[in-house]
């Protein structure tokens, strides 16, 4: 039971990464590698700020701001510097590694004995792991609501149109470069925000905590889509959170099967690859079904 609650809590806390990545991966329609750098960046900023005496809330919001600045730089490299987005993201991710070490001063910074978002009397009074369920739910309700509102505004519609058909967007007077930069800023802001949450929940920030982040974030998006099928845009955003929880359950099962935590990145990659290939499997399955039926009627 405890394991289940823990999985739900982790799923909720990490779901913000899925929503952040959704904006670039699904709406702007490209894979932004920056997130592998902005996730530990958010953690580093938050840990450093808390250690410097800032309140946990300020530190978490600061992580969002710095994360979105990193997204802005990727956006500038991509739109104004004409560097392909994949490479622009990798450049920022690499640069962030050094920046994170500078911010923290060493590879790992502990938050032991420091105030965090999780250390207040109300959350401490909850049963074990329910603190992350509570914080995660609150965060996801607010973040999802804001993103849904944003996408339904005139600006948000211009943002969606940019990812959908750039030529058309430009011919309607939408500044597509600005839209891409804005998307990268919000996306990386949210990912850094997630990094800050996870660091506070774990009790430390680590320079290597960004490895495989894009796979985890993609997994919540893809698992959500595979599990719930045809949805409207708003429903899909909610499905990301559910996908993130389902992903944690998958990990739980995998660990129960006897794999250890070191195998998780490999297993995450396999789970994601299988989910992404599902449409292909379905198609070939249907084809066989149709062929078989065709033979049957001939007999």
């Amino acid at each position, binding site marked *: 039971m405890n394991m289940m609650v823990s999985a739900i809590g982790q799923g909720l806390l990490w779901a913000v990464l899925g929503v952040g990545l959704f904006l670039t991966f699904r709406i702007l329609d490209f894979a932004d590698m920056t997130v592998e750098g902005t996730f530990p960046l958010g953690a580093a900023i938050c840990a450093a700020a808390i250690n410097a005496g800032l309140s946990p809330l300020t530190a978490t919001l600061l992580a969002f701001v710095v994360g979105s600045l990193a997204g802005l730089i990727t956006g500038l490299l991509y739109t104004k510097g004409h560097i392909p987005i994949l490479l622009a993201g990798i450049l920022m991710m690499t640069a962030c590694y050094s920046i994170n070490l500078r911010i923290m001063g060493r590879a790992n910074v502990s938050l032991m004995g420091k105030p965090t978002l999780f250390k207040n009397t109300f959350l401490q009074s909850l049963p074990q792991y329910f603190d992350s369920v509570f914080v995660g739910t609150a965060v996801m309700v607010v973040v999802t609501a804001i993103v849904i509102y944003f996408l339904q505004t*005139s600006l*948000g*519609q211009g943002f*969606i149109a940019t990812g*959908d058909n750039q030529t058309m967007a430009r*011919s309607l*007077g*939408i500044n597509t470069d600005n839209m891409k930069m804005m998307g990268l800023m919000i996306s990386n802001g949210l990912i850094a925000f997630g990094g800050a949450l996870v660091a506070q929940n774990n009790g430390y920030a680590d320079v290597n905590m960004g490895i495989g982040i894009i796979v985890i974030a993609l997994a919540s998006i893809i698992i959500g889509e595979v599990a719930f099928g045809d949805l409207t845009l708003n429903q899909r955003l909610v499905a990301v959170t559910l996908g993130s929880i389902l992903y944690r359950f998958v990990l739980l099962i995998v660990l129960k099967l006897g794999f250890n935590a070191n195998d998780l990145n490999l297993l995450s990659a396999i789970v994601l690859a299988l989910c992404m290939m599902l449409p292909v499997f379905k198609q070939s399955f249907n084809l066989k079904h149709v062929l078989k039926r065709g033979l049957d009627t001939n007999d």
Partner: protein
Amino acid sequence: MTEPLLQLKNVVVKVNRHTPEELQILNHLNLTINQGDFITVLGSNGAGKSTLFNAIGGDLAIDGGQIKLRGQEISRESVEKRTRFLSRVFQDPKLGTAPRMTVAENLLLAEKRGQHRGLLPRQLKRQLPRYRELTAAMHNGLDERLNTATGNLSGGQRQALSFLMATLERPELLLLDEHTAALDPKTSDALMTLTNQRVQEEKLTCLMITHHLEDALTYGNRLIVLHHGQVTYDVSGAEKQALTTERLYEFFKEIE
């Protein structure tokens, strides 16, 4: 005398600049577009028709000359800024609409062409009755599919929608780049009739590239032929009405 809407003076566009393959696609092109002109544009492949549109629209920077809107130089303005007075319909039905967004969402996007897009709710529902009326006038079933993603429409429906989107917020200048070429003859004719009707009713100023000599003769008050990046033929009014396809064929033979 009223000021012309758009003037192109000695416009030069080159490709492969500073290489041995340098080519002038627009070669000191001069064109004056008057308010209310419906100009059909003819020319063989490579004559510079699409380049002319891209130069006016701002997709291509010009290497020389001037483009003036009501006497104001606009050749340094961005594509986005120029959409305040300009709208376009492309040849490829895929280019004119956002495939994952619904018909109504596309219309709403188009209605804000060239305007500020802010953080206020889009208020799509309020527009639906009006959009239904507008699309019903196209007589191609679009009004039944307002909430369908445009990616699921037929090419003809998409192109009709693109045209509607381009004229929804009245443009001062409408550029049609062979907008019926990708459609089957019947759908193409229907869209062409609709185009003509709309341009006449709204008294739009319009440039239309076409490869159909008959369309070029039937529609519009003025006809121009582009050749080697220049306007080599420019007729309007009664002179254009007297023109026949045979005469045009002869003219094309002469210039080749």
